[in-house]
């Protein structure tokens, strides 16, 4: 895929008011690729996108388009178009004029404009809305107009900043499919920003996981899900149990007061590590001396499965199961070696947002009892 690299970011650094927002971003983007920048709010996704679009110039590092350095090329001379967060449609223009805006500037002839606007409105399923004011449209419709307004300029790359953020769940799902279709039909590159891991995994060819202005991992959705490089990625990509452990030797790890066989190696002897276990990988069995035992603290029905909180040893576990044990009962936890993912200790604390969610819930319960 390397031969058709169309955008390269090299050692990009950015500072706002003395705060380092991007700390050395390196990223290659290929032709016709659907790349998603994924990360929690404030991690620098929008800033990265704005650097690609040319709306801000990085303090350090270089941006290349097709091998040419474009740091100083203004947005209106770059072969990219953007679908902005909250759409940024022009309120003083109707739907037709919004979509036609880019072509008008290029002095395209009127009949040609009419033809292409018609095509675009058909593509986004809004035929016949030409004369509507953009403020009279629903969020989903405005969003489609924003896409049409960008795509009509035949960009090589479309930048999308949380385009589905303001839509309700059902519409989101529909639009995810729609956007993916549009990308494949138009055969262009999408750089997509979201903080929704599910959205990233369903739509992307490549997911770029970001945190605090750094890239944590770049890979296919499968790579990111199955082989997260650290506890942060594992946790952000899916709900995960992250437990402190010690690697005794290759393929033997100690955590939760027990030794477990695992499939990872290559750590120093007795190195402290993060042990990451997905809630759906854990099997509950009747309590016995053979297995790790824990007390069920809470059970919640989540539609497809139950979410079960178990206190075992000194750790809180989140477990997904289709069967619900009694609250207060003692259960056994079993794991196969493949379910245990060993990761280098990340220097950042509080990666397990899941755990903290639970602690909050516990706190409020107590308050209610009082």
């Amino acid at each position, binding site marked *: 895929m390397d031969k058709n690299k169309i955008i390269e970011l090299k050692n990009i650094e950015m500072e706002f008011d003395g705060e380092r927002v991007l700390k050395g971003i390196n990223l290659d983007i290929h032709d016709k690729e659907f790349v998603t920048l994924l990360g929690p709010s404030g991690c620098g996704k929008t800033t990265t996108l704005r650097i690609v679009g040319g*709306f801000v110039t990085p303090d350090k590092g270089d941006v290349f388009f097709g091998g040419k350095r474009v740091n100083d090329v203004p*947005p*209106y001379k770059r072969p990219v178009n953007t679908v902005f967060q909250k759409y940024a449609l022009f309120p003083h223009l109707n739907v037709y004029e919004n979509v036609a805006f880019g072509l008008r500037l290029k002095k395209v002839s009127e009949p040609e404009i009419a033809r292409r606007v018609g095509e675009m409105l058909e593509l986004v399923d809004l035929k016949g809305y030409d004369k509507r004011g953009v403020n009279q449209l629903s969020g989903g419709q405005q969003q489609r107009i924003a896409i049409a307004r960008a795509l009509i*300029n035949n960009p090589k790359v479309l930048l999308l900043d949380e385009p589905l953020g303001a839509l309700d769940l059902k519409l989101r799902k529909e639009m995810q499919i729609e956007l993916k279709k549009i990308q494949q039909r138009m055969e262009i590159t999408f750089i997509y920003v979201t903080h929704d891991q599910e959205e990233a995994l369903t739509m992307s060819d490549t997911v770029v996981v970001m945190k605090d202005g750094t890239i944590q991992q770049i890979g296919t959705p499968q790579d990111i899900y199955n082989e997260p490089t650290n506890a942060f990625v594992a946790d952000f990509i899916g709900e995960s149990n992250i437990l402190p452990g010690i690697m005794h030797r290759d393929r033997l790890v100690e955590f939760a007061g027990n030794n477990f066989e695992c499939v990872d190696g290559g750590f120093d002897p007795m190195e402290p590590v993060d042990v990451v276990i997905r809630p759906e990988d854990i099997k509950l069995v009747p309590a016995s001396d053979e297995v790790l035992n824990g007390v069920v603290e809470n059970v919640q029905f989540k539609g497809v499965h139950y979410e079960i909180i178990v206190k075992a040893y000194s750790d809180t576990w989140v477990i997904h199961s289709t069967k619900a044990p009694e609250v207060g009962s003692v259960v056994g936890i079993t794991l196969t070696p493949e379910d245990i993912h060993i990761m280098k200790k990340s220097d950042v604390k509080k990666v397990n947002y899941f755990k903290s969610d639970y602690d909050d819930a516990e706190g409020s319960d107590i308050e209610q009892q009082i």
Partner: protein
Amino acid sequence: MKKIANKLYIALVFIFLYAPIFVLIANSFNESKSRTVWTGFTFDWYVKLFNNEVILKSLGNTLIIAAVAATISTILGTAAAIGIYNMKKITRSLVINITYIPIMNSEMVTGVSLMLLFVALHIDLGYLTLIIAHITFCVPYVILNVLPKLRQMNRNLYDAALDLGCNPWQAFRHVIIPEIMPGIVTGFLMSITYSIDDFVISYFTHGSTSQTLPITIYSMTRRKVSPEVNALSAIIFVVVLVVLLIMNFNDLRRTKPKKKKEAAR
């Protein structure tokens, strides 16, 4: 009972506010020169008014000065508002406060200090000094009307324009200006009214040939109030009323579609 009292109260307030003006308008059609006796209906005073060279000359002065001062103020004020909008937070609030000073300041002080400045700079008092003086008190009104429109604007609109191929100037003309137009229009109309209406500052900065209407009226009433002045005041009142109505209508039209949108949600 409470409702009736309420209505009565409002009626009283309006009578106090508007009775003098209606008396004045009525008197402008009174045949008699006396303000206490009604002897019959006439347009004579209006006819005389439009044959009064001094009044016509100062009316012309007033309109020219208002048009020039308001136009320049609108351009300067809009540019200033955009500059202020793009400033860093601390400098911005500082500059906004400085902007308020000419509005808060006593007109007397502004007028005298401007006069002293012009004299010190050896600029002869006349059209130029009047226009400069009017610009100084009109610009803040334009800024204060345009700034909120800029703040209401989605920050990404400018970027969206660049993204679709506008250079900065085109983005300004095709996107920013239409967005803030209501503020610009209101600022312009306010400048016109304040400029036409201004007496104190004009009094200190006008020259012998550049009398504005309020100054002429003042000098006419010093001797005795001529019914021509009534006629003139009536006309001014109607014009100002119409401008105010246009301004309100303009605002109303702009806010209506937004309300519709909110209702739709």
